[in-house]
């Protein structure tokens, strides 16, 4: 009896293998297909690690002064390095200088003396300057021109964690846009920024955020407005295709793309295009009345521009 069962079991398992093997090879969750060692080792856990490293980069941006999961994180919902890079919409509220609150006991009070206790940003000098420790109001946004490429080069210290984060989760688009901003804007590494964005675009071919950032490089660093316009128009097309159908579309990105396209069109005196993008900008803007003022200004410019056109062209007699 046993002698008969063993060959039957062998045959059954062989039949099962011939059925399962082709399915396994074509299965999307098959880690054996992946050439990426991290993907094979960590599986989906790498996304959690990627997010951890992204937050770690923001902790470095604050030189270690950063809330833990047990602290009040309302002022740190959006990583400041990403908000400052315009890679994510700033959703922070609350007091970022006092997330710890008053000390709860003597051990807490004593222990705080051994940890960073001042809110600083690396791009503004970090612990060496105590930029936020002087009681001046602190705002996030594009950095003043005078410190670009000069002070705050210590911001390079966030890069290893961003790179590790991208290696772990190539689909996390904000890593590419944040890294590219700091690379090109503060460290003067435009080529590296562009190459990193290209890597991101290969992993996320439909990302309007990456296309927008590539457009900024073309416009601000390569001084190639045609290329910038093409990239931003493609970004807008991607946004309309993938974001518009969503219940809560990313209007922050639309605002960025439309505003840059409008300003570029205005710079190139393409008034029709300019008005079109201004309307888009207005629709996405939290302050539409300000954009409406701009639309009115542009409408006033159009007749004058049309009148001035033959002179500007300097036609031959």
């Amino acid at each position, binding site marked *: 009896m046993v002698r008969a069962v063993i060959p039957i079991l062998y045959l059954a398992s062989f039949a099962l293998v011939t059925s399962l093997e082709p399915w396994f090879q074509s299965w999307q969750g098959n880690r054996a297909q992946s050439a990426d060692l991290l993907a094979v080792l960590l599986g989906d856990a790498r996304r959690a690690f990627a997010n951890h490293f992204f937050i770690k980069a923001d902790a470095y941006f604050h030189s*270690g002064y950063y809330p833990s999961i047990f602290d009040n994180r309302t002022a740190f919902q959006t990583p400041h390095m990403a908000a400052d890079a315009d890679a994510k919409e700033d959703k922070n509220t609350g007091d970022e200088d006092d997330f710890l609150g008053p000390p709860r006991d003597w*051990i807490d009070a004593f222990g705080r*003396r*051994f940890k960073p206790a001042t809110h600083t940003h690396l791009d503004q000098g970090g612990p060496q300057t105590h930029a936020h420790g002087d009681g001046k109001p602190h705002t996030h946004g594009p950095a003043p021109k005078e410190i670009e490429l000069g002070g705050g080069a210590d911001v390079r210290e966030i*890069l290893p964690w961003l790179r590790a984060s991208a290696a772990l989760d190539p689909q996390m688009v904000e890593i590419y846009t944040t890294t590219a901003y700091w690379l090109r804007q503060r460290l003067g590494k435009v080529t590296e920024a562009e190459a*990193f964005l290209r890597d991101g675009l290969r992993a996320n071919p439909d990302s309007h955020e990456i296309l927008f950032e590539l457009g900024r490089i073309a416009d601000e660093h390569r001084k190639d407005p045609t290329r910038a316009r093409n990239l931003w128009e493609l970004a807008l097309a991607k946004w309309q295709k993938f974001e518009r159908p969503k219940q809560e579309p990313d209007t922050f990105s639309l605002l960025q793309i439309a505003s840059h396209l409008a300003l570029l069109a205005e710079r190139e005196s393409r008034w029709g295009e300019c008005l079109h993008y201004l309307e888009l900008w207005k629709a996405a803007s939290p302050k539409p009345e300000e954009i409406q003022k701009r639309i009115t200004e542009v409408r006033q410019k159009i007749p004058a521009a049309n009148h001035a056109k033959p002179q500007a062209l300097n036609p031959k007699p």
Partner: protein
Amino acid sequence: MTAILAIAQLVLLELLRRKDVYVLFVLTGLITLVAGAANIFEDARVVRYVKEICLTLIWVSGFVLAVTTAARQLPAERESRTLFTLLAKPVSRWQFLAGKFLGCWLACGTALLVFYLFFGLVAVSRERSVDLAGWFQAASLHWFMLAVPIALALGGSLVWAAASSNATLTLVGCFGVWLLGRHLHKVALGLPEPANTLLTLLYFAIPHLEIFDVRDLIIHRWPPVPWTIWLGALFYAATYAGLTLAVTWQLFRRRPLH
């Protein structure tokens, strides 16, 4: 005092003979150097992540070294029966215990000195600046902090029979306090009674090893802590280790040797 120093010297020599410290040092060095060799956007001046990796490995190695060295002292002496020979001589139990503690603590100090020298070399090679005060504070705080796990592991070897279980439990406790100790009171405040009171009591009872962790200050080049505060931390570690040793001595005094 001579007896204490003689026992301490034996422990120190034992550590040098064993491979643990060399393995930990080689691992720390290797991982740090590999991490440091990574190409970060063609920028050779990126250094803080290397400092963090190196210091974290030093902290982990410090705990492992301190606890494993201390946890095997009494069981090893008992197994080899040298404990009876030692205590038959004019060596009291508290001298024996003090000698073992001092030996483990000095051994850890020697190992830490080598580890921190390596850290200094790595930092200087990339950063081109020296923060002697910060590094001295970090190393000294670390060394004094290790007195507490050593005392706990010595005490644990009287409670748990096997050195391995003692070492494992002490290590788990130390890592738990290091990573979560500072947050216990915050968590306790959000809990209902009696969990609130119990967790608060635990918070005040545990040794706050995390206080001594000034890695963030030296990684990100913050100014050193005020020297009076530094001295206060050393006093805290010495007091806690002293109290733990006193309890251990009381246990050891009442315990039959067989």
